[in-house]
C-alpha cells in the first residue's frame, strides 16, 4: 500500500471538510473494496477518512420507506427485523453479499458509492426506486447510477443514507460468478403501486440497468410465464471469460422468472 494518513471523521461535515482539504482524500467505510484496491497498489490516497464514528449507521422505519444509514453494515441489514418485515428481499440480498466477514464490515454506503457493475445493492436501489441521501441533496436512484463504477456523486460528496420505499412485493435472485461470487447476473424484481420494476446487475456493459421489456411483460401479467416471449438484447451485455453475453441474457430471463416466482 502506498503511504497514506488515516483519520476518523467526527461527523459528516468533518468528513466533507477533510475531503476538501486533501489532494486525494478517500472516504473509508467498510474497507471491503477500498482496502484490497489500495493494498494491491491499484489506487492511492493521501488521506483516508474513516466514517465509522460519523453517526451514519442505523436503520429506521419512516412509514412509507426504510431508511438505512450509509455506514450500516451488510450484516445489520441481513439480520434487521425491521428490514426483514418491510422489505424481506433487501435483507435476503444483504445476506448473499460476499461472505460473513465481508458482511461484518461492508456497508451499504460503500457499495452504493462504488457502484461495482457486479454489486448487489444497486439493483435494489433501482428496482425499488430508492433515494440516495447525501450531505447536500437527495438523488433518485434512477439518476444516481451513471455507468460502471460511475455515479452522480460529486468528488467530495458523502452519502449519508439510502431510503427504500416499501414495495408490495420484491425479490432478488443472484447467479454468482463462481470465482468471485459477486453477481454474474442478479435480478431485483419489485412490485409497487406504480408498477413492476426489474433491475439487472452483473450483466450490463454500463452497470446496473432496468429492463423495459421484462417490466412491460410483467406489468401486463405478473407471472414467470409472461416473460417467456421477452427477448433480452445481449448486445448491451458484458461478455467475458466467465459468461458470454448470450448466456448472461439467458440468465437474466431465468433469474427474473425465479424472482417473480418468489415474489
Amino acid at each position, binding site marked *: 500500500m502506498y503511504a497514506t494518513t488515516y483519520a476518523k471523521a467526527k461527523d459528516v461535515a468533518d468528513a466533507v471538510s477533510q475531503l476538501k482539504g486533501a489532494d486525494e482524500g478517500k472516504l473509508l467505510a467498510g474497507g471491503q473494496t477500498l482496502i484490497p484496491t489500495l493494498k*494491491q497498489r491499484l489506487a492511492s490516497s493521501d488521506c483516508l477518512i474513516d466514517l465509522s464514528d460519523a453517526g451514519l449507521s442505523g436503520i429506521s422505519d419512516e412509514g412509507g420507506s426504510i431508511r438505512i444509514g450509509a455506514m450500516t453494515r451488510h450484516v445489520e441489514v441481513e439480520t434487521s427485523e425491521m428490514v426483514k418485515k418491510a422489505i424481506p428481499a433487501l435483507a435476503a440480498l444483504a445476506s448473499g453479499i460476499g461472505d460473513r466477514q465481508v458482511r461484518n464490515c461492508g456497508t451499504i454506503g460503500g457499495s452504493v458509492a462504488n457502484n461495482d457493475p457486479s454489486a448487489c445493492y444497486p439493483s435494489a436501489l433501482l428496482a425499488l426506486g430508492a433515494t440516495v441521501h447525501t450531505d447536500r441533496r437527495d438523488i433518485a436512484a434512477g439518476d444516481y447510477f451513471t455507468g460502471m463504477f460511475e455515479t452522480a456523486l460529486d468528488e467530495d460528496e458523502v452519502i449519508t443514507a439510502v431510503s427504500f420505499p416499501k414495495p408490495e412485493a420484491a425479490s432478488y435472485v443472484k*447467479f454468482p460468478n463462481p*470465482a468471485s461470487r459477486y453477481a454474474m447476473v442478479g435480478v431485483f424484481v419489485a412490485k409497487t403501486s406504480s408498477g413492476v420494476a426489474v433491475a439487472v446487475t452483473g450483466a450490463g456493459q454500463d452497470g446496473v440497468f432496468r429492463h423495459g421489456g421484462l417490466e412491460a411483460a410483467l406489468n401486463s401479467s405478473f407471472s414467470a410465464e409472461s416473460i417467456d416471449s421477452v427477448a433480452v438484447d445481449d448486445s448491451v451485455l458484458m461478455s467475458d*471469460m466467465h459468461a458470454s453475453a448470450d*448466456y448472461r441474457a439467458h440468465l437474466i430471463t*431465468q433469474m427474473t422468472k425465479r424472482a417473480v416466482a418468489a415474489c
Partner: protein
Amino acid sequence: MPEGTMNQGIGASVRRKEDKKFITGKGRYTDDINRNGQLYAYFIRSDVAHANIKNINVNAAAKCEGVVAVYTGEDIAADGIGGPICGWTPTNRDGSAPKEPPHPLLAVGKVRYVGDHIAVVIAESLEAAQAASEKIVIDLDNLPAVVDPATAIGNTQIHDEMDDNVYFDWELGDETATADALGGADKVIELTVTNNRVIPNAIEPRAAVAEYDEIEDRYTLYTSSQNPHLTRLVMAAFMMQIPESKLHVVAPDVGGGFGSKIYIYPEEAVCTWAAKKLRKPVKWTADRTQAFLGDAHGRDHVNKVKLGLDKNNKIVGLRVDTIANLGAYLSAFSMVTPTYLHGTLLSGCYDIPAIYTNVKGVCTTTVNVDAYRGAGRPEATYLLERTMDYAARQIGMDPAEFRRINFIPKDAFPYQTAVALQYDIGDYEPALDKAMEMIDYANFGSRQAEAAKRGKYRGIGLSSYIEACGIAPSAVVGTLGARVGLYESAVVRVDPTGTISVFTGAHSHGQGHDTTFAQIVADKLGVPIDSIDIVHGDTDRIPFGMGTYGSRSLAVGGTAISKAVDKVIEKGKIIAAHMMEAAETDLEFKDGKFTVAGTDKEKSFGEIALSAYVPHNFPHDRLEPGLEETAFYDPLNFTYPAGTHICEVEIDPATGVVDIVDWAACDDFGNLINPMIVEGQVHGGIAQGVGQALLENAHYNEDGQLLTASYMDYCMPRADNLPSLKIDYTVTACTHNDLGVKGCGEAGAIASPPAVINAIVDALSVVGVTDMSMPATTEKIWRAINDATAKAAE
C-alpha cells in the same frame, strides 16, 4: 500390549501429533521466520508474454530511499550463477536428446511469459522495494505470444536453441503392433481429450529467507519446499556452484505443495545469492498474484485417442498422440510428467495387448507447467476413463460392465503392461462392486426418473483408475533419464532412556508424517507413540532424502524407517542375548520386550537402550555401543493403488448448474497405517479433481496474459461446492515393501475428474450430448444442451 501403546500402531486412526501447533497458531511457516537486519526482495516481472529486452534502467530505483541493491540478469550472469534444471529427461524417438534451453534466474535478452523475472530490488522494507520497483524503466520490443499448444509447433520461435518450439518428441510402446491391432479391430473409437490447465494454489504462498554466515562461509535457506535436499543439491551444484555442505536448507512447516513446491524457483536462488553479496539476510514472500504468475501450473494436454475393440467389446489396442504444453521454461519434472509418468499408465486397469503413445512437449509463452498432484497419472486416467465411457456409450454397453470385462483379471498378476510397467498385484472388480453398492448404482434409474420430474437431469459417472506411486526404483528410472536416485533414507536414533528420534528424508506439508511414521515405529517397537519424534525438513539434521511427491512418502520413506527399525531390533537382540546369556536364535522381540523362547527371561526395550549407551554388560566383541541405525530404501518397483470412484450429479438445465449429489470411492491402497489420515488425503484429492472438472481453469488470452490471476477470477472449490464423500477400501497388500503399503496422496485427484465429466455426459445424454470439456462450467453445459437440442430438432 504395554500400557500406553494401545490403539496407536499400524491400522489405528491415531489423532495427529502435529495438530496441536497448527490449531493453536504455533505453526512455523517460512514467512513466520525473521532474521535480524533482514532485507526484503521484490521481483519485477514481465507484464508481456514475449519480448526482446532492449534496455533496463535501474538507476532511479537504485537511488530510492531504503534500497540496498537492484540486480538484473546481467549481474547474475556475471557471477556465473546457473538457472533451474530439469531433473529427468526422456530421449526423443529418433534417439536424440531433448532440448533444454537455459532458464536464467533473471531474464537475459528476452522475456518469455507474463511473470518472467526481470529484476530484483532489495531494500530495507518490502514497501521500499516495491516502491522502487516502479521506478525501473524497462524497454521491451514485443514479439508475438504463443499460447495455444496445439499450434505452438513451428510458431514464433521462443528459444534460440529450439527452432520448432518442441522440447521433446517421445514415444512408448509398439507402434506397428498397435496399428495392426487397430487395423484389425471390430470398431475403433476416436476421441480428442483435452486436459485443462490448472494452478496448484497451495494456500501458503512460496517464501524464502536466506542468510550467509561469513565466518563459516555457509548459507542457510529457509524455504517453503517439498524437498529440501533436492533444493540443496540443485542449488549448490547447478546454480550457486558451491559445495553442498555449504548450503543448509530448512523447509519448516509448509502450507501445502501439490507439486508446486518441488521445483527450485529463481526467487529462492536469487535471495541466497544476494544474501552473500549483501552480507545480510534476504527475505521474499510471494503474494497470491505472484503465485499465480510464477508457480508452475499443472496438466495442459491435448490428446488424440484411438481405442480398438473386438466383436466382444474387449480392447485390442490403444493409440494416444499427446501434445503437452510445458510453458516457457523447463522445470524439475516437467519432461517426465507427460512421458514416463503418463505414457506408462495408459493401460489403466485394463488388459490392453497393444499400446502406443507419442508425446510432444511444446514450448509456449506461458509459465512453466510441471507435476501437479498426480503428475501424469491424472492426465492418463482422464483420457482413458473418458474414452472408456465414450466407448461404452457408442457400443451401447453399461459403462460398469464394459470396464469389468476389460479389467486385468485377478489371477493375471504380476501383469506386464504394453507400456513398460509391471503391476505386482491388484484386484479391480471388488472395488468396482463396492463403489457401486455404496452409491446404490442399481437404483440409479429411479433417482434419475425422480429428478426428471423436478426438471433436473441426473447422471452417474464412473472412473476406474490405477496409478503408480512411490516414484522408484533408481536403477530403472536411471535408464529412463532420471538424474537422481529415488530412494529414501531414514535414521532411527534410540536415546539411552528409550525415547526415539526418527530422521526422514520425506517431507510433510499436510500429510501427517509425524503421526503415520511414528505409528510404524511404535507398532514395531511396542513403545508409546509420544516417545517418538519425527524429524524432517532440515538438511543439517537428516542425512539425505528425496522429499515428498508422487505419493512416495509412506511406500518409500516409511519403508526406509521400517528397515532402520528392523536393524535396531536386530542389534537389540544381540545385546539382549548377551545380557540374558541366551542364544541369539532363541531371542524374540514382541510388544516392546526381548524374551528368550521357552523361558520367562525378558528385557524391556528401555533396558536394552540403556545398556547400549551404558555398555557395562555388553557384547563388545561384536557390536559398537549406541543404538542408532540408518537405512536407505530403494524399492524394486512402483506401487499400484487402484480403485473406482463414482460421482452422481444433478444438472439444472435452466442455468447449467451442476450439483454433485453423491460420491462413492473405493480405493485399494494396500495396508493402511492410519485410515483417518488416508481418508483425509482422498477427500483433498477429490476436491482438487472436482475443482479441475467443474471450476478451475488457467485462462490465457491470445496475448499471453493470464486472465485468471487472482481468486476473483480463478475459481477455487469452496465448502459449498462439494458434498460429503463416501470412502471405503479394498486391500491387496503391496508385494514388495515390508509394510504392504501403496500410497494414497494423489488417488483422489487422479480418479475424480473423469468421474465428474462422465456423470455430466450421462446426465446430458438424454438430450444427445456426447462429450464435455473441463472445466464443465455452467455456460458450457447450457450451451451443450442448446446445441444438442437444436441438432435434434434439425
